[in-house]
């Protein structure tokens, strides 16, 4: 993308609409949160939330605080660690289940029994059987992405148009060629979709896991990640910081998804043309 294209996109109507909507939302939030102060009547729900101006003041105080960025770093580390592990294990597993019938027969039933167990239900067990808290959090985030990735890869590889394989076979492709040049690229869109969904779940899971397990072995609020940051703010009574933590997770999740979308777009250029 050239610079001019980028600035065009940055100042496009769609971007302005997004900024406008966020602005409107902030105004409502501010008015609602300050309702008691301004009108003498506290609006339900929103009247108890700290106003955005206070949140931003609190946030600006945190921007220079390395422990706040340490929370970002820790959560990102766990999310991407668990997510990459889920890709490394999940993609081959899904592909192998799709192409090998007897393996599918053996693996799929156990997979389907384990899949409905929410990753968070694994927290106590994983604290017991992983040597460090860090590993148990990473394991739970791994589970968050793992099932979604496997199911998507399996579904994608199973629904390949049979005629692609027949055509390739007629043209002299070997078994390995068929896998590498037909099965793999034909499954790639499903891999991308599965990863994007899995990434979302990973963020949901990591935050909860951090809250429950107390932020990992690196100790304290500083090394605990964004989930623990929210939890310790709640315990410490700093309501503004709770909101800061929540928005931070929103932004972090958005950055992760956008990264995956861009990467997915590069890997599947033929889908852009539809």
């Amino acid at each position, binding site marked *: 993308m050239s610079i001019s294209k980028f600035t065009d996109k940055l100042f496009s109507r769609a971007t302005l609409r997004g900024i406008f909507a966020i602005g409107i939302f902030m105004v409502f939030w501010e008015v609602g949160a300050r309702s008691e102060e301004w009108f003498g009547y506290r609006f339900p729900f929103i009247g108890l939330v700290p106003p955005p101006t206070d949140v931003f003041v609190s946030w600006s105080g945190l921007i220079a605080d390395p422990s706040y960025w340490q929370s970002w770093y820790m959560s990102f580390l766990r999310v991407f660690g668990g997510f990459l592990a889920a890709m490394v294990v999940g993609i081959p597993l899904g592909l192998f289940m799709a192409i090998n019938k007897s393996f599918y027969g053996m693996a799929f039933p156990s997979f389907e029994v384990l899949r409905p167990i929410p990753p968070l239900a694994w927290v106590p067990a994983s604290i017991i059987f992983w040597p460090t808290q860090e590993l148990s959090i990473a394991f739970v985030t791994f589970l968050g992405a793992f099932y979604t990735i496997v199911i998507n890869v399996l579904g994608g590889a199973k629904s390949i*148009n049979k*005629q*692609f394989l*027949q*055509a*390739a*076979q*007629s*043209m*002299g*492709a*070997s078994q390995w*060629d068929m896998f590498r*040049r*037909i099965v793999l*690229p*034909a499954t*790639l869109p499903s891999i991308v979709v599965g990863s994007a969904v899995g990434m979302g779940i990973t963020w949901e899971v990591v935050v909860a896991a951090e809250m429950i397990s107390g932020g990992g072995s690196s100790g304290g609020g500083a090394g605990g990640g964004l989930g623990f940051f929210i939890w310790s703010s709640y315990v410490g009574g700093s309501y503004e910081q709770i909101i800061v933590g929540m928005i931070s997770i929103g932004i972090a999740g958005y950055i992760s998804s956008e990264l995956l979308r861009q990467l997915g777009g590069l890997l*599947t*250029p*033929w889908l852009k*043309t*539809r």
Partner: protein
Amino acid sequence: MSAVIEENVGSLADVTSGAINIKDVVKIYDPDGAAVMAVDHCSIDIPAGEICMIVGPSGCGKTTLLNAIAGFHDITSGSIHLDGELLCGPGKPQAKPGSDRIVVFQNGALFPWKTNLDNIAFGPMMVGNQSKAEIYDKARSMMADAGLSGTENNFPGEVSSGLRRRVEIVRALMNDPKVLLFDEPYRALDSLTKSVMHEALLEIYYRNKVTIFFITHDLEEAIFLGHRLIIMSSRPCKPKKIMEVDIPHPRDYSVLTSPRFRELMNEAKDVVHEEAQKAFDAGEKEG
């Protein structure tokens, strides 16, 4: 059309390979105990280089026959030979798919993740006995011959369905097949695009004469393209009537309005209608 093409276009004498002998082929499907006979003692001889049009009612088993030649299916009994060599028959129920017989599928099977050029180069790249540069040079020149210049780096999804079909035929021809197997490739196209595709196909054929085994429902298409029509009976599939199309090649769209074309159309229509009625009645009974 060049003079070279016109001189020898009518004769198949210069085509030396691609003769198909289908002899007494029977195919019985037995998926859940209820044996269904799809092909019944079907015998067809197709000389090398002929455009042989297979016409028949829906679901009569034409595609089963095509799949047996291509090697995607086995046969129950009988035999199929290509240039005297056994493809499938006694002791070898299923032919091995090979680049001497390439299928152009009904819904198209271009790989959407490869550009048109990469699609066309796919077969020779898989076989791997030519250099990459040679293959791509040939692919480019064949695309140019087929009027596909400028779409080399497009993905199949970026060009019209008519162009896609042309890319697929060029991809098939890149393998130097002896036989092209068409499974109703133009079914989904509108009639205007179809007429353009027919002329384009003939032009490609005049340049690279290979045997063509072409399944269709469309009588106009069948008579316009074919040297011969083989009208199949409703299930189980076996040849009911063989019609020679004595309109000389090269043909173009003016043929459609000729009296001989009309005569052949009427002759074929009667036979096909009778079989279609039978298939319809049989369908009602089963339901």
